């Protein structure tokens, strides 16, 4: 079925409202659906929260093509990078599912249900030669699994090239978190740990800092292999091309430093057992003066972690039957109000 309707581009509203609108337009008030859209590169991308909804609206040019699938038989593989070009016609897949019956039936939950394990962050503000990697130790049993060593690197200084001491990754433990992400490699130079520069610090100091931050470790490295760098402002990486007009000045890597500190508050709660009862997380005391600040910080980080997780993997999934697709036309492009930080997750 196709529907076509218009939406105020400058005021797209919340995703929830939009979702309700879709259900209303299609007269399926109690059916759970997956919403997707095709972006300017022809990729089929999901709409499941405010951020990607806004993004979708803002990139509509001027027509935004929306696809709706019944959730229980959704075709997840339809989403992702290069979906539109790889598959000659997503629509045909969607509409004629019988072609693909041979694929095994595996149910995998939505991307937002996964716990992130690692991510590259701040792509837009770091120099291209650097990579900021976040390892989420929380909740996994995998060891972080890497070693660091002293070494020396060459820096450009006002006096020309100079050899300066540096900290390098010396070993990755097979099967460890660091290795499995593929984002860190032996001989990568460690530049920062959770926003704090390591230059001038000893190996032991950096070790202590990393271990102290091990639940939410963010390391900025200069990869030894510079060929796999994320290249900004181009489409080859397939990272769905956000942040093309990043308004943040580049090479200000410390901006997030203090934010990350605040962010950590929420994911590192100590545990208390009272009178030999059940272990509980220790709540935060909320004295009047601090509550607002800390609350707003949590809100903020909530947004930043939720925003824009995009599936980049290719999974074998069953395809859907009985999907609904629809198109609608958005009005004139409004001002882009939202910046995204180009987060990628690796599963």
């Amino acid at each position, binding site marked *: 079925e196709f529907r076509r309707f218009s939406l105020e581009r400058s005021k797209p509203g919340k995703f929830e409202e939009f979702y309700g609108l879709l259900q209303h337009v299609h007269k399926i008030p109690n059916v759970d659906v997956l919403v997707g859209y095709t972006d300017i590169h022809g990729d089929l991308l999901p709409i499941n929260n405010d951020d990607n909804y806004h993004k979708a609206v803002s990139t509509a040019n001027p027509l935004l093509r929306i696809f709706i699938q019944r959730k229980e038989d959704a075709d997840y593989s339809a989403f992702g990078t290069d979906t539109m070009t790889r598959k000659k016609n997503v629509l045909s897949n969607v509409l004629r599912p019988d072609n693909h019956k041979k694929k095994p039936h595996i149910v995998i939950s939505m991307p937002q249900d996964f716990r992130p394990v690692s991510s590259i962050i701040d792509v837009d503000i770091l120099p291209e030669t650097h990579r900021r990697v976040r390892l989420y*130790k929380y909740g996994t049993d995998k*060891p*972080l*699994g*890497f*070693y*660091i*060593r*002293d*070494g020396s690197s060459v820096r450009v200084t006002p006096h020309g090239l100079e050899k300066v001491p540096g900290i390098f990754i*010396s*070993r990755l433990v097979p099967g460890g978190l*660091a290795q499995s992400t593929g984002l860190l490699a032996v001989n990568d130079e460690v530049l920062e740990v*959770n926003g*704090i520069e390591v230059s001038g*610090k*000893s*190996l*032991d*100091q*950096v*070790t*202590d*800092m*990393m*271990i*102290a*931050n*091990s*639940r939410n470790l963010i390391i900025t490295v200069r990869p030894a292999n510079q060929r796999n760098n994320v290249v900004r402002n181009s489409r080859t990486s397939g990272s769905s091309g956000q942040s093309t007009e990043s308004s943040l000045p580049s090479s200000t890597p410390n901006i997030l430093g*203090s934010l990350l*500190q*605040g962010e950590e*508050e929420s994911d*590192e*709660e*100590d*545990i*208390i*057992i*009272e*009178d*030999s009862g059940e*272990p509980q997380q*220790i*709540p*935060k*005391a909320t*004295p009047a003066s601090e509550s607002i*600040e*800390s609350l707003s910080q949590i809100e903020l980080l909530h947004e930043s972690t939720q925003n824009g997780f995009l599936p980049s993997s290719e999974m074998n999934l069953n395809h859907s039957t009985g999907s609904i697709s629809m198109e609608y036309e958005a009005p004139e492009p409004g001002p882009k109000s939202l910046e995204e930080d180009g987060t990628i997750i690796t599963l």
Partner: protein
Amino acid sequence: MRRFLRPGHDPVRERLKRDLFQFNKTVEHGFPHQPSALGYSPFLRLMAIGTRSGAIKLYGAPGVEFMGLHEENNTVMQIHFIPDQCQLVTLLDDNSLHLWSLKQHGGTSELREENRFTLKGPPGSPPSATQVTAVLPHSSREVLYLGTESGNIFVVELPSFRVLEDRTITPEAVLQRIPEDNCNRRSCELVEALREHPKNPDQILIGYSRGLIVLWDLQNNKATHHFLGSQQLENLYWQRDGSKFISCHYDGSYSQWPVSSDNRQAEPLENTVPYGPFPCKAISKIYWQTTKNGLPYIIFQGGMPRASYGDRHSISVIHGSQQTAFDFTSRVIDFFIIFSSDPAAEFDDPSALVVLAEEELVVIDLKSAGWPAVHPPYLASLHCSAITCSHHVSNIPLKLWERIISAGSKQNIHYSSMPWPIDGGTNIAPDPPQRDLLLTGHEDGTVRFWDASGVCLHLLYKLSTVRVFLTDADPNDNMNTLGEDEWPPLRKVGTFDPYSDDPRLGIQKIYLCKYSGYLAVAGTAGQVLVMELNDEDAEHVVDHAEADLLQDQEGYRWKGHEKLKTRDGPVRFEAGFQPFVLVQCQPPAVVTSLALHSEWRLVAFGTSHGFGLFDHQQKRLVFVKCTLHPSDQLALEGPLSRVKSLKKSLRQSFRRIRRSRVSSRKRRGGGGNASEVQEANAKFDQDVLQEMELAPVQRKIEARSAEDSFTGFVRTLYFADTFLRDSSRHCPSLWAGTNGGTVYAFCLRVPPAERRMDEPVRAEQAKEIQLMHRAPVVGILVLDGRSTPLPEPLEVAHDLSKSPDMQGSHQLLVVSEEQFKVFTLPKVSSKLKLKLTALEGCRVRKVTVANFGSCKTDDYSENDLAVLTNLGDIQIISLPFLKLQIRYPCIRKEDVSGIASCVFTKYGQGFYLISPSEFERFSLSTKWLVEPRCVVDMPEVTTNNHVHKPGTENAARKS
């Protein structure tokens, strides 16, 4: 959180911080590490000690101390005071000479280097030509005579160090007057000794190494007498009237020579080998001291029979028929005699023998019968047995202070009552603000009580825990019990005894309650002793209990040392702290934390396996809690198999330290066998190091997990009367923090005083907090309703503290190695935190609450946390808001033992070991500053009467 990371910009606070905090290293306590030279000025009555690291320290009356450091950091070989001046000259092993002087500046005297000089020979001459071997500051104070290896004696002017070339005494000039047949050019090689004639400043005695001794007339520039010794010469000494001198020799003999105008080529009056007839070692220095009764004192170093006693470090005193060889436990560096310095006096009348040994200073009273030792008021050998822990108690009540002193004085009866003989200078420092005790625990099971109130760290009392246990060593086995007619007449002196009978006796934790006089000490083999101060000797049975910390956990086997065996039946204890309860942990692992609550009569102790609470009133174990993680096998097996990697890393760090020392030593060069050996060692070390550095040092990055080893290790124990269960009722509680970031809180029920003996103390676990970052918990503290730390037990009862605010809500501060966290009580919710490691990469090593007073106003003071990190920095962090106030670099981060030894006081001072034998004292406070302030005045020199200095009374008071 971010608010607390930002440096404060509040100008009012910044100003207040300047009034509160200030970092100073104020004084070094203890005995200088590796002393290498000794000097004494009878005129100033000051003693100088030089060290192998180039430090020079002057000591006079107690409290009179000066310190200087040669830039070169080279070994100080010789120290000579300029006669009748506030100046001294040092000779370093790089052959440089340095002139130091004491000058008054701003009301106090300061030691400053004035000038330096290296003797240079003519171009092309070998270095030995100018290698200085003997230094003689002439009594005219204008010149120095420098004897060299080549046999030349150079004359340099003071203070300019200008060489007066025309006055050089060459071997050729010396040989002119000496018959050819028994002398040749080689007789005049290496000047061993230079001595000015005691009555005639124009004559100097020159001793050459090969035995030739020449009396040289400075006026006429010629040798007037010569004396031919058959043996290699070691040293010379004039008799007071200048009619005779004495020489000592390499073969262990000494000779007396007459100096008379008629006989210009004398034969020795007497030639003696005091410890013959078998071959003896060299006598390296000798004194001849005359007395009124005619019998001289002959005091010399060495000369022991080579085969049987060649390894002894001895100084012998012969006076008539009395002869004693004082036997030192470490090498004798040098010694001097304090005698009448009045030039008009007819006799020397020696009063004291001062010996600088490698590890201690020993002073012998020569006036009293039996030649007893004098108790030194400073330069204490802190390391007479290795220091294993320290504990500082501020502001000791006078009553306890006096009782400790009285107990100590009973131990010191064998010391001489002579006032301290080195009494130059005047101590003008104000009296110490309070009485402070520093307690050091030692490897041999002793605890030493030091008066740490002032500049002189002074031993008050020594406590031994050995008597409680049965050890292999027999306490009656004493080296002093030699028979009457034993030869040589050796007598052991000094306290330095680095050999521990049993390492299990080592003291690991000390806790003294200054109000009640209860003391708890805990040791290496899981022993916990509770003691009480008793002014009398007593014989009693020590109650004994065992605390099984494993509590029936199956399948564990302790592979470490066995527990100590206890003595059955009553044991006799001398006056002082007498143990009445012994608790032995099972397995007998090192006690890692200790807390004593003297009001509740409870003692808590923890090891790597768990912790326990003991009621020392009823002598009953209240409870034990095993903190061991079931998978932690390492902790169970004991110290033998445990932590190989730790051992390895320790060894590496030692090597690193040694390498830095070696490389600095290498530069010094110098001849001699010993330095060749050192060189070889250095090369070996270097090779080992290079080998090690081929494999890159790498560090594993891994989150800590509950399964890590030693998570159960109990790091801290704390008693508090606080709101643990509900906010309406407070109760006694015990808090414990482990290496794995767990905090346990137990609610205690202590019966009221009248039923204290009838009802048992009960304990119930109320809370368990797991810090998710799992870093070791190093400190626990409860803040009262006014955010003030709870007072110590009995502090309120003695009216020395305001009672804590029990109305407002209490807060719990947990300090881990990585973070500071404040939680609310009784409902635990997190309130504040400061993350240290995540931001700075440093870890907390020591933390204490310290009270800082303002130097501007008397009525302002505040409590802050004083923190020492593993990088050796000291940080002050405010309470209760956990804001970093200030940071000072204090200890080198490589100095692991220095950082481990640091103790803070309650008033913003601290101590740490800079060597095994020395504490550096530092101050963080503007208000409490204990540092030497002293004046050395030039005594009047014109009169012939020695001016007795006012410092003498000080000495009498202190010693």
